[in-house]
């Protein structure tokens, strides 16, 4: 399918249902940056890959934008686009889950919070999956769990690396325990992926929290993150309530995770495509290794 059809449309970008700590993309022709408060122009922001030209803040991207960002032009072929959530519990809180889903679909042109398919990155074939925070806060319900699982299975079948861009407000509460069990399901398939010798790279983006952070997102061979992304299991407010004090600045941000040994690298968005391409080429050389030749310093 043409990538353009993925593009985010002119519809207003809603915050999704979960109010994450994530900063949303400013609306309108110009706006104040949610991070540095300086004036930024939408056009400039988009030209800079949704990175604030003033302070470098990485705004969230749609699944389509990320796929365009990192994959070779025209290489992406989507799978499982029609897979979608149902309402297994008959969940009605302040509003029925079915309405929540309907609205998310309308807003995003997506059927679920993750998009996956085959593509190539700098000429290496991969299976790529990208979560989209606009869709119910990229929370993980049964359909997301299934699509992540299918993506991993596709990578096993194709014998090519799996690349997942993660983002999530956590589990999809409206599916109750079925949602929690997607942590087990996605982790189990990543274990299979590993036993099949398939390289797996995850990229944690703002925000990656809860059940997604405590399952497939952190099980990758190589874990990258965008700068200053919020990454953690418990939400900052829950932690503040528990410990009875404010969290230090930078807590649960990418830089904090790198220091604590949880990340391999923090990669700015502008370098993401090339870095991924290099890593994939190292882990899964595109051509079989040639007969040995004697080396010279390059």
């Amino acid at each position: 399918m043409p990538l353009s059809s993925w593009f985010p449309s002119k519809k207003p970008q809603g915050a999704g249902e979960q109010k994450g700590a994530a900063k949303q993309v400013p609306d309108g022709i110009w706006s104040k940056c949610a991070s540095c408060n300086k004036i930024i122009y939408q056009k400039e922001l988009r030209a800079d890959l949704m990175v604030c030209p003033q302070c470098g803040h990485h705004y969230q991207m749609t699944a389509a934008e990320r796929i365009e960002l990192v994959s070779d032009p025209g290489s992406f072929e989507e799978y499982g686009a029609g897979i979608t959530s149902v309402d297994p519990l008959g969940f009605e809180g302040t509003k029925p889950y079915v309405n929540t889903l309907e609205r998310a679909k309308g807003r995003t042109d997506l059927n679920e919070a993750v998009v996956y398919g085959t593509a190539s990155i700098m000429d290496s074939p991969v299976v790529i999956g990208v979560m989209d925070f606009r869709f119910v806060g990229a929370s993980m319900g049964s359909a997301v769990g299934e699509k992540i699982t299918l993506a991993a299975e596709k990578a096993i079948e194709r014998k090519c690396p799996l690349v997942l861009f993660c983002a999530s407000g956590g589990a999809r509460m409206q599916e109750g325990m079925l949602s929690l069990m997607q942590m087990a399901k996605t982790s189990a398939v990543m274990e299979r992926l590993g036993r099949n010798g398939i390289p797996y790279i995850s990229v944690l983006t703002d925000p990656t929290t809860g059940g997604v952070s405590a399952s497939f997102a952190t099980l990758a061979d190589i874990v990258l993150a965008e700068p200053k992304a919020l990454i953690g299991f418990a939400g900052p407010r829950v932690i503040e309530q528990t410990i009875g004090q404010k969290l230090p600045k930078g807590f649960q941000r990418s830089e904090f995770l790198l220091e604590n040994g949880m990340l391999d690298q923090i990669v700015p968005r502008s370098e993401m495509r090339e870095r991924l391409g290099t890593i994939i080429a190292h882990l899964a050389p595109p051509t079989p290794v040639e007969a040995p030749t004697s080396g010279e310093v390059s």
Partner: protein
Amino acid sequence: MGKYAFEFERSLVDLEERLEFLRNEAADGTDETASQVDQLEKQIEKLREITYSNLTPWQIVQLSRHPNRPTTQHYIESIIDDFVELHGDRVFGDDSAIIAGLGRMDGRSVAVIGQQKGRTARERVQRNFGQPHPEGYRKVLRVAKLAEKCNLPLITLVDTQGAFPGTASEERGISQAIAVNLAAFSSLRTPIVTVTIGEGGSGGALGIGVADRVLMLQNSYYSVITPEGCASILFGDSSRAEEAASLLKLTAEDLTGLGVVDGVVSEPLGGANRDPHWTAWELKKTLVAEIDALVVSDSEELVEKRYQKIRSIGVFMTEQGETIGSPLQMPDLVFP
């Protein structure tokens, strides 16, 4: 001290206290009090039946948190012979919110792991109320791998509100520690039976809960989020937990219906706290039978079955518009 009672148990407990008083009098001997005792006993039995036979989800949550509810330690002491506790994650520390070790159940060597909330106020603090840090999950992994190596069936007893949501937890990678366990348990080459004995709180519970057989005690709950947390998100008011408890389908019965849980272990009327010994006996009977059934498969087959079981959990709609899995609701309520 008076008996601990929830709101919905109040009138029952009042009667029980009255009964105890009368019994003391009856010991002195008048026929009248003896007949009063008799009558009251019948009345209590009836009321107990009424109070406990149709518990709401919220009442079950309350029972699962009963301060006298038997803990992991109780079950280990009751059903495991010669228990040897193992300590430490070999990396950073030893987490006392989790007990792990080896023992014999009905003559068979097993490994046992469970969250321990504590039985006294002091123990609860020392155990961090059963809320593990990353080192707890890493200790679990170590002991699980030992069980695998020595072909010991693994029993895990879940009883936690969740992993501890604190700064140290995040610093030392609680997400990663739980994720690694989910992956490792899915391919562990030894039988695993898990039982939620009290609270099954989110990822912190699941971090020791991936298994061949997933059981729950009758008055335990298992949920993606605490009812309070859910109420806080939905209604901006954590005191509406009772409503949230109903929405979340967190009881053993609902979860059996959803295919998440394989079986329910009976508790005495009124909850495990009313007869911890009897409950341990029920639990042991069940565990022995489940393990006996699992040890016969070879480990390849066991792991493959476990994988397929985990792989199949979930309810969603395929591209062809077919609903996979079994929703609790009638088809006409299924979206779209």
